Structure formats: structure tokens, C-alpha cells
């Protein structure tokens, strides 16, 4: 049963995320682009809250908004965000558009294919609790989880090796 208010909020989020996602690629200032990306990611977190997935929502905020974009801003400030106004653009628009389009298509296809039109009913009483997510990750999805952690570990060690001076 979809609530009217749920729909209203959904479309409001849709509009907000759409506009900010467009601005990410059209804005000429890199810091502004990063901030628009923050708005988009926060919109995604809000969508998760709308679907009663609080855990995923706040992990989204913590990891993407709180860590990745902050690190991006940090890097930009140290390297190429000049104080005041500046134009940044490059001539790889076509490649970028094709890559983004292909990624979008593949992801959409995977999601549609995986759910096969199956509908999930949400119940207000339970929501999605952190305990159940933990159970699922460490039972059915333990292999992908371990693979991802190995990947992250490799990236971490690689970063240290590259950054070491001696």
C-alpha cells in the first residue's frame, strides 16, 4: 500500500536528485560539482529512508557523503581548486557520456533482471533492522563480502606502498 505522502516525497526527491545530478556534470567549478554530488547522494539516502532501510541510508551518508566526497574535496583543495573562480573542462565529453550511459544501462538491466518484477511489501512495524542485515551478510552473502574486503585491503596496501618514500 503506497501512501500518498510517500509518493509526494518520492517525486520531490526525484526532481531534486535529477537537477543536482545534471548540475554535477554541467557546473564548471569542481567544488560546486562535488557539492551537487553530495545533494544527489543525500537524495539517495533519503530514498532508502523512504523504503524503511535506515541502515543502508545512514551507511550511505557515512561512507559516501562523510568520507568519499570529503576526501575528494580535500584532494581538490590541495591540488586544483583555485581560490575564487576558475573554469575546468576537458575534451573527453563523448567518452564520458558513453561510459556513463553503458554503466547506467548495465546496472539497470542487472537490477530489473534480478528482481524479475517481484514486489517487496514493506511493513511499518519491522522496517529493516541492522541485525537482519548482519545475518544476511555473514551467511548468504559472505563470499562477495570477503572478496570486497580483500579488494579493499589490496587497495589499502597498494596506496601505502605507492606513498612510501623509501
Amino acid at each position: 500500500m503506497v501512501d500518498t505522502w510517500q509518493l509526494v516525497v518520492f517525486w520531490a526527491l526525484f526532481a531534486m536528485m535529477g537537477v543536482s545530478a545534471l548540475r554535477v556534470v554541467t557546473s564548471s567549478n569542481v567544488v560546486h560539482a562535488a557539492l551537487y554530488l553530495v545533494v544527489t547522494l543525500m537524495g539517495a539516502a533519503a530514498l532508502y529512508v523512504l523504503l524503511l532501510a535506515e541502515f543502508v541510508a545512514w551507511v550511505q551518508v557515512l561512507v559516501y557523503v562523510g568520507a568519499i566526497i570529503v576526501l575528494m574535496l580535500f584532494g581538490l583543495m590541495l591540488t586544483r581548486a583555485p581560490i575564487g573562480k576558475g573554469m575546468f573542462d576537458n575534451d573527453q565529453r563523448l567518452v564520458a557520456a558513453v561510459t556513463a550511459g553503458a554503466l547506467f544501462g548495465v546496472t539497470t538491466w542487472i537490477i530489473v533482471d534480478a528482481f524479475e518484477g517481484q514486489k517487496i511489501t514493506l511493513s511499518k512495524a519491522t522496517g529493516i533492522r541492522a541485525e537482519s542485515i548482519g545475518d544476511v551478510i555473514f551467511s548468504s552473502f559472505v563470499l562477495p563480502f570477503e572478496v570486497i574486503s580483500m579488494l579493499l585491503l589490496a587497495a589499502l596496501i597498494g596506496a601505502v606502498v605507492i606513498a612510501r618514500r623509501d
Partner: protein
Amino acid sequence: MNAIVDFLGGDIVVTAIVKTVVAFAALLLTTLIVVWAERKVIADMQARIGPNRWGPYGILQTLADGIKLFFKEDFRPRTADKWTFALAPVLAMVPSLLAFAIVPIGDHITIGDRRIDLIVADLNIGILYFLAMGSIGVYGVVLAGWASGSKYPLLGGIRASAQMISYEIALGLSLVPVVLAAGSLSTVDIVAAQAGSVSNVSFFNGVPVLEQIAELFSFVPNWYIWSQWPAFFIFLIAGIAETNRAPFDLPEAETELIAGFHTEYSGIRFALFFLGEYVHVVIISAMAVTLFFGGWGGPKPDFLPWIWPIGWFVFKTGLFVYLFVWLRATMPRLRYDRLMWLGWKRLIPASLVWIMVTAVVNTEGVSRNARLVVFGILFVIVLFWLGKGDPRLTGAVTPQRRRVHGPS
């Protein structure tokens, strides 16, 4: 009245709105009092008088300052980035205010036949929400530094982002053992897990003498400060670093950076940064109380039973705020490389080791001997590790470095 309630969506919505407004007002009022109290306490510690003009003991001083700042001219540098410059102070203040939503300030009160829990929102993942809000708080400082369009704020902003990212990791990791011990991410459950007495801990059951000794301490509450003290100290240090206050106030080091990230800010926008810092202090204190000092728990006499938990909570939080002020009056500022050394090479490894220990100890079915072995290994690691101090402190200057940097 009932028509309005129905229009807004019934009891739940109205309760939520009332709670939010009351919490917001109470937090701002507390912050004003904390600002005044800090000036008074620091004045006392430095043998000065402090504010004493407005109201008894100068208690209205903050209000006077606020009115002054509010009516000052609002200007920004020509090179500043207009929107980001305006956005930064708001981002510095709002996340700290929002974080208060998951702090339980008391048990519950009953109005009519309606039970009202004294917490704005008991989220299933409260701790995660607190960490998320803390991580958004970085934006205010970083953006202020960048948007001001001048170099000292930029340096302050970069310092702040490096510092806050480093200490956020330690802060997050220091909360994991508490979550493991309580078995829940909800602050309400964590407070509930700290009810009762220390002597209920089953670790000493069956050991003759120790059991009786444990019995003697039955008056001591079962707060996590006893079983989780390493986590508490890591939380406290990382929490102080998160608020950017002395001895971790490098982002606004006056002697090096003028005023750091808020150099170009004045008037009401500066006031927002200023208030944001104090709200953050109150939040970290409140979280320290909630996670390690039993939250609102305490003796509850029959007279007005609902007010005692609130009183205990305010009292404990007040002690922590005092600690913050005390540290500012006492501690010199850390050098930048020492700050990074402490964060990355001491706090983060320490919290990781402690997570492992807590995980082993809290697993059901682990025998007492196995636990003692874990403690023993931990003890050896800590001894070894403490012996290796910062090479820049113990080893002084190595011959090679003297050749490069020393006088020739």
C-alpha cells in the same frame, strides 16, 4: 484542537514535532549557558573576573553578544564564493543539532494515558546516525576554508579536513566495542544494558575470593566506563579532536593562521560557527554519558520520579562540559605531526586491538581461561607498544638529520 491534530497526521506526528521543538530550544539554551560558563570558569582558572556586567554573574553576557553579532554588518570578501560562503556556517551547526535526536535524556513520562519516551527518535541504528552526522560536520569547516577566498582560511580548512577524517576513524572504531558489548546500535538499548550493578558480571562467578570481592562492590553501577575504559579514552580524545577545541584546535590556531577557517567570517555567520562548536561540545559530552556513564541512570527517589533521570543526565553531561573547559584552560596546543601520530599510530591501532578483545570476551561459550589468555596477550602487546614512543621525542635528532638541518 483535535482537528489540528488529525490534519497533522495524528498523535505520533504531533508528539514528534513537540519533541523536536523542545529538544531544539533546550539544546540552544544549554549552549548559551555553556558559552557563559566556559568564560566564567576559564576566568576563574586564570585568576580573572570574567563577564560580570549583564545579569547576575554576567549570565546574560552571551545574549548581549548574540544580539551584537546579529546586528553587525554582513559582508564577505570579493574573492569569496557567494553560495558556499553562506552555506558553510549552516553546515557547521546543523549536523550537531541533528545528532542530538538520538540522545536519550531521560526514561519516559506519562501524560494522560500516553507514554512519551524522552528521546527525539529511538533509531534502530542510532550510533550509525551519530557517526553520519559527525562526518557531515566536516563540511562546514572545509567549505568555509575554501569559500573564503583567502589563504589562511584555506590552510585552516585543509588542516581541519585532515584532522577530522583521521579522528573520525578512531571515534567510529571506539564505539564498536560498546556496540558489541551491548549487542545493539540503539542508544536506548545501550543505556538499558548499563542498568544494574557491577557485581552481576558473571566473569568472577565460581572463583571463591573474587566472587566475594565482587559482591562488595554491588553499589557500583554497571556502567561501560568499567569494562570499556580503553574505548572511553579513545572516544574522549577523538571526540575532543572532532570538536576542534584545545588541545586539538589546530584548524583555528591563532598564532599561525589568524583565526583559521573562520578568519573571513563576521556577524551572525561567525556566531553560527561559534554556536556550532559549543553544540558539538554538548553532543560529545552527552554521548560520552550515554555510552559510558549509564546515560540517565542513577538513584531514583519517590519524589517526582520522572525528573531524577533528567537531572542525572544533565549533571553528568555538565561534568563533561566542565572537563572540556578545563582542558582548554590547561593544555597547550599539539604540534601538527604529533596530532597525526597520535591519531593514526596510537588511537586507531589501540581501538582495533580493543575491538578484537571485546569481540572474544563477549562471545558466548568462551571459557574463563581463554579470556585470561586474550587479556595476557593484550597486556604484552600494550607493554611492548608503550615502550616505543614517538621517535621524534625519545631519539631526539639523529646524526643524519643533524647533518642536513643543523648549523654547519
